[in-house]
């Protein structure tokens, strides 16, 4: 299946509903948090229906918790699939993390131990999910602040093993690579080198907060220069995929959010121009 390059997008957030519906800005596409629309009722769904008339929508989830001690939640997956059919999302993503235990949710993207056992558990589940959803499924690397001593491999070796054994795609969050590289003291380019980048179908960009002792993935600020540099390093290696700016706190205007996202054009255009020259 060919994965389309949708261009540059931003997250669809309620803070911008009015501007989007009234101004219909020339944004390439929107990403939604699946869980915000999964009930498929009320005002959020009514607005999404209107946005879908003018823009491609891609679903990104936060509550799957694929590596959780609890088994997969089939009620959740059925609702996810139902929404996916309605939005016609070309692919669907969630995080390479865990978040459920004893039937309750942490509502956080918690780190996994990078072990062979966990590769097996997560890759088997990911394969089942992709088969069930009947569209490409991607897992995203998360920002992390702690690492288990039981880990048997690096994060990128773990990520690679999971997506290859499951035969799924990657949603590569460049900000998360950078945040984790600072928190765990590794070379972010080594991380990138260790990945099967032909599996990347989308890239996330975002801002973070420097807390002094660690970086926190807060999605509440512009993308920092170091993350743009890393994006410039990664993007050509993907041969051109959809790019999305996440901004979830301390919202700024739609115009300013879109301006920040458009900074990615500096890198995406270079690749397009290089491709044009090659032909």
């Amino acid at each position, binding site marked *: 299946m060919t994965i389309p390059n949708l261009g540059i997008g931003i997250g669809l957030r309620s803070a911008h509903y009015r501007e989007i519906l009234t101004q219909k800005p020339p944004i390439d596409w929107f990403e939604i948090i699946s*869980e915000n629309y999964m009930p498929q009722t*009320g005002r959020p769904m009514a607005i999404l229906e209107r946005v879908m008339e003018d823009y491609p929508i891609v679903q990104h989830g936060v509550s799957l918790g694929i590596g959780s*001690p609890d088994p997969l939640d089939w009620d959740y997956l059925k609702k996810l699939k139902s929404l996916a059919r309605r939005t016609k999302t070309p692919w669907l993503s969630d995080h390479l993390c865990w978040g459920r235990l004893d039937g*309750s949710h*942490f509502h*956080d993207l918690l780190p996994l131990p990078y072990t062979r056992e966990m590769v097996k558990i997560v890759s088997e589940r990911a394969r089942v999910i992709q088969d069930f959803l009947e569209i490409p499924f991607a897992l995203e690397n998360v920002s992390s602040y*702690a690492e288990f*001593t039981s880990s048997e491999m690096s994060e990128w070796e773990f990520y690679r093993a999971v997506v290859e054994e499951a035969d799924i795609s990657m949603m590569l969050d460049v900000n998360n690579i950078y945040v984790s590289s600072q928190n765990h003291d590794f070379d972010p380019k080594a991380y990138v080198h260790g990945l099967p980048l032909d599996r990347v179908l989308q890239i996330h960009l975002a801002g973070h907060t420097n807390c*002094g*002792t660690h970086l926190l993935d807060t999605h509440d600020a512009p993308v920092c220069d170091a993350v743009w540099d890393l994006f410039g390093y990664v993007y050509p290696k993907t041969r051109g995929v959809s790019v999305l700016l996440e901004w979830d706190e301390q919202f700024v205007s739609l115009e300013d959010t879109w301006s920040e996202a458009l900074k990615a054009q500096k890198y995406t255009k270079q690749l397009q121009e290089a491709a044009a020259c090659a032909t």
Partner: protein
Amino acid sequence: MRDLEWFGSMIRRPLSVGYVGEFTEEEVAGRILPGPKLPGHNRLSIYRQQYWLRFFKLMETCFPTIARLFSSHPLHFHLVVPYVQAHPPHAWSIDLLGAQFPAWLEATYEGSDKPLVVLAAQVDWAIYEGPTQPELPAVTLAQAATSVLRLQPHVTLWHMPWVFPPVRAQIIERPVDGWIDEPFPKLDRTECWWLLGRSPEGAMTWKRLSETQYLLLHTLSQGATLAQALENIPESALDEAQAGITAWFMEWQHNGWLTV
């Protein structure tokens, strides 16, 4: 998986007052690697803080009146922590975290202001969840005479011992800790009746009702024809109901508050 069960049990431990969530080195017992700037136990604490701060912030958003009645610190430590421990989030949607909070307050809160606190929590929750409630097909004028009518899921009816909605509006204008040194606006102790529902534009809005309107809508909320609703009106209010029902119905129908 044992690592994850241990990790989860650790970060669910409530933060101590002052929002400190530090573990000791012994508690982490070599399960978490040290980082470039933080030892393992401090790194685990980041997740513990994130876990609780996320819920504190969400509960302030879901329950803006309660947050201001109590202020942030008592809200977090005297209400949210015991509530989340009693009702850990079982839903995949974090938005449902507060769904049992009004009932939990009713069952556990013992302050002398309990009736007001419980009402405030119920109102806050109705306003928070209203926008996501389903919109069922609106009743048409043609269906008015004979159909069994119901209220839309986003419409709730309120019988209050105080004129609460305008006071609530004043209270939530200020920041969460904005009333610590100031008295709250005075509550008018007048019995009153209200409808809370989504407007055609999608905003949650109040409509003050007469007692007769409230009684009619209350009957409709259980599923009834207009004629059946009128039958439930006490003799003393029947003239008012019969004189007003056509205009009232037109308003309720225009606002999309009724379904069949």
